[in-house]
């Protein structure tokens, strides 16, 4: 570790440790109106459980600081301004700046994108006005609109892009979903119907003020850092970073306009929605063009640099969600909690896929997912607090899947399953959890074990570990098999 790296990490940790807790939550006034100010600072560290692999850095391989602030100002009873921003710095780039192993693996070359997140849209998270007159609701600005019922799969949740540039590391919500510029209008009719308890009609317009796409896990250590997938194409060659030529809509170009409508209602004690979306995929479809370039990796193997041409195709879907609890399934001896069922589905028209012979083709597709949240008491394991058990199943069906060739990255039927289990001990302060994601098609798994200790509502300590494996080579989580790691995080949250 370089001297400057030591100093930088020490400074970040000192900043966290010097904070002291305010006794009570703070709301300030500005012009006689309330303004809420909140934030947090976190310092994490990731330690690899493997070494001697080209795609993995030995011992400590990330040291991410997040400084997040938000404020909500009520200009009047029905008009609010919300702003939030975040600074993300991965001090590993300073710490390992001169480290031979780090440089041999070309991780240092990903510094431009992953050391400090300094694009305006990364620093400014949300910035919106909300006007709430009578039965209407308007929100204009950089914001997040989330649809759907499942956790993690993001089935219906297609409006905002996703930031996965730091891979599957322990992430904060504020660093994962990317807010974009949207105009949102909602209408809440006054109802006097006993079975229809509530209703909301939502309309979203994306004027494409600034096209922001998913930040994907890229190929190549020089682009993706420690999360670059390990894809070995032969005994002596692996995929390196790709050269991409992506066609994206220009600002305010109507080709980038997006429209979304949702009818959400509460009826018969169930929550359901009908959704329609017309817009662009947040990730591109790409085909490889021409011969790949080559370079030599630090371990002597050849790196293939593929050339890709791609664009962000149209995404049009009609879908719906449904959720309710199921009282018949409550069992007194398990604590009497009825599980909550969550369903989500959409049918997409003429989705675009890249084929294995490097063409673009269109097919309809159907995606659906079902999940359940069930709290149960298991007295031998936890006498005082319940266990939350949340299994999910996801199916993506591609209609008219070709027989002669494949679509890249998808089969005609694609299945995922997940399981989340958590509980609490000692005044809800200690929260262990377990998460398992199963890629059924590729027979691959991701496991996450985590324990959170909330010393107070200000200080939180997290320790966890992630493990990856896969049977199908170069597919699913197999490409992360060398990236098993443990992580630590200390957080201070102020309010």
């Amino acid at each position, binding site marked *: 570790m370089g001297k400057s790296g030591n100093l930088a990490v020490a400074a970040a940790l000192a900043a966290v440790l010097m904070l002291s807790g305010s006794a009570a939550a703070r709301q300030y006034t500005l012009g006689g109106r309330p303004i809420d100010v909140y934030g947090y600072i976190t310092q994490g560290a990731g330690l690899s459980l493997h070494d001697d692999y080209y795609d993995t850095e030995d011992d400590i391989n990330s040291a991410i600081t997040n400084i997040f602030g938000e404020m909500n100002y009520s200009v009047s009873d029905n008009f609010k301004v919300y702003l939030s921003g975040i600074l993300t710095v991965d001090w590993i780039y300073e710490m390992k700046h001169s480290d031979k192993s780090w440089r041999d693996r070309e991780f240092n070359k990903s510094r431009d994108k992953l050391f400090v997140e300094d694009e305006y849209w990364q620093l400014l998270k949300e910035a919106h006005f909300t006007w709430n007159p009578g039965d209407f609701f308007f929100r204009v600005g950089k914001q997040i609109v989330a649809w759907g019922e499942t956790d993690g799969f993001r089935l219906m949740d297609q409006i905002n892009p996703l930031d996965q540039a730091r891979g599957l590391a322990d992430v904060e919500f504020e660093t994962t979903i990317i807010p974009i510029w949207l105009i949102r209008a909602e209408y809440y009719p006054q109802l006097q119907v006993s079975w229809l308890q509530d209703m909301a009609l939502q309309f979203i317009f994306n004027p494409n003020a600034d096209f922001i796409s998913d930040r994907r896990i890229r190929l190549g250590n020089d682009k993706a850092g420690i999360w670059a997938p390990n894809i070995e194409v032969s005994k002596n060659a692996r995929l390196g970073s790709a050269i991409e030529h992506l066609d994206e809509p220009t600002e305010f170009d109507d080709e980038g306009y997006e429209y979304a409508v949702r009818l959400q209602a509460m009826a018969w004690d169930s929550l359901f929605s009908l959704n329609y979306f017309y817009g662009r995929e947040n990730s591109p479809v790409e085909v490889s063009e021409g011969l790949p370039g080559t370079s030599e990796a630090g371990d002597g193997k050849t790196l293939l640099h593929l050339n890709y041409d791609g664009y962000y195709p149209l995404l049009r879907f009609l879908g719906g969600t449904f959720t309710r609890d199921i009282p018949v399934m409550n069992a*007194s001896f398990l604590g009497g909690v009825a599980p909550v069922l969550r369903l989500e589905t959409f049918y997409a028209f003429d989705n675009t896929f890249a084929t294995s012979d490097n063409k673009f083709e269109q097919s309809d597709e159907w995606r659906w997912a079902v999940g359940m949240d069930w709290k149960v008491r298991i007295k031998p394991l936890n006498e005082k607090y319940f266990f939350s058990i949340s299994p999910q199943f996801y199916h993506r069906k591609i209609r008219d899947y070709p027989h002669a060739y494949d679509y890249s990255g998808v089969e005609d039927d694609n299945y995922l399953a997940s399981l989340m289990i958590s509980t609490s001990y000692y005044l809800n302060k200690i929260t262990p959890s377990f998460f398992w994601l199963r890629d059924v098609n590729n027979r691959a798994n991701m496991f996450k074990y985590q324990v959170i200790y909330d010393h107070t509502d200000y200080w939180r300590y997290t320790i966890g570990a992630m493990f990856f494996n896969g049977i199908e080579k170069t597919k699913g989580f197999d490409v992360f098999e060398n990236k098993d790691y443990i992580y630590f995080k200390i957080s201070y949250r102020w309010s």
Partner: protein
Amino acid sequence: MKENTVRIICCAVALIMLSFITPTGAEEQYGIDYSTWEKYKSFYDDPSPYLTGELSWKKVIPPAIYDKLKSDPEEMKKVWAEVVGFKAPEVVGKIAPEIKPGKYSYADKEKQPFKQLMDEDTYNRFNPGQGPHAGNIPEIEVIPTKQYYYPLPIAKATKDNVGNVKQGTDGYLIDDSYVAGLPFPRPSGEFKAQQAVYNWEKKYLAGASYHLLQRGMGFSKDLKEDRVGTSTMWFLRLHGRAWLEPNGWYDERARKAGEKRMFSLLYLAPRDQYGNVLTNTMYLDPEHYDNFNVYVNVLRRVRRLSATDTQDAVGGMDVIYDDSETFSQKLSPKRYPYQYKIVAEREYLAVSPTVDGSWYMKKSDKSLQNMKYERRPQYVIELNQLDPNYVYSKRIIYQDKETLLNSSIYNYDQKGRLYRSAVMLYGFNPELGIIFTTGYFNRDHLDLHTSFFYHYALPATWISRDQVSLRSLRSVK
């Protein structure tokens, strides 16, 4: 690009200007915000009598509305004494009569027969501030017993319905027989204990519909702050309305669906909860589970919560959903039913509902100061749980016989150990005849933790379904 930027700026300016237009027909949303409350009453070491000062209802509620809510106190006293059959000052003073009004320190408690006059928990807390729990009382002021009463419309509704409210053969209330008011102002007979619990269930805290600011703190066994909880709540009573119009059912929908009450809760702190909003609709039918939803700000989604998830601790605050307001469990013959009995009916020295709000918590030792106590006639109600799978085996409720409100509750786990308890700290507005909460504290007696809350409750004529339905869920993010 430049033209579009101008358009966006114009739209934003137009929106800001439009925001200052109040929609036609909308009632003025009077009240205070959290920062204003902080200004007049700090969390610690602040004896400010905020309820009679700048934050008094008389100053916060518009005069036209306040005058409409007022009744003649003497008339209210008279009618309520007829309803319950006594005035509290006339039925107390029989136990330990040597304890006279005046100030007493914990050092006096062995010298005077406080042990006879206090319940066990109050007696144990009559001590200097010290662990493992916050909320001890080093000094108390015993004041003469007062008569408490309700607004005339509530008192009259109660009086008019005496004898009309029916119970089934198992003591459970027949919903159709209840119209408004407290259902059993003079509990008696075979189901006396259940009647007392139903009085609590139909209570008129802060009148009927009210706005509540809540700020709380959690304390570890060494009295260090470890939790913070700040929220704003809106309560809308949908049935048995007797004070704020409309009377009876709130609307036709409430009648058809048998809706009892709705509330919405917006979290302001801790930071991780900031912007989360809970909404809840309760139904009269005990077998019809609540409609319970939460807007999870971190997901930006409305999530349905299992309405049966009532036994797991809420956010480290020493309380389960069934413990809300001391006791909010549905009274059901099928789901975790109880055997009810009154185990004592006598006077105790209990916390006097504050009129000025001058009580406070001392920061150095987390004790309560400026605490006034008075002799109160009380029921001690024991609820024995018949299902061994429920979190508690027994609940002991102390209920005031005149206000018919719970003053404290003690919950025992299935091993018979005292697990959690809650003590209410009420306020009273003599002009309106309204009792409301000014705070409470919950304790976990097994893991040794205390959660302490201040309340600012305000009768709110403006609360409608708008504040407690789906639209209320997206208020911050």
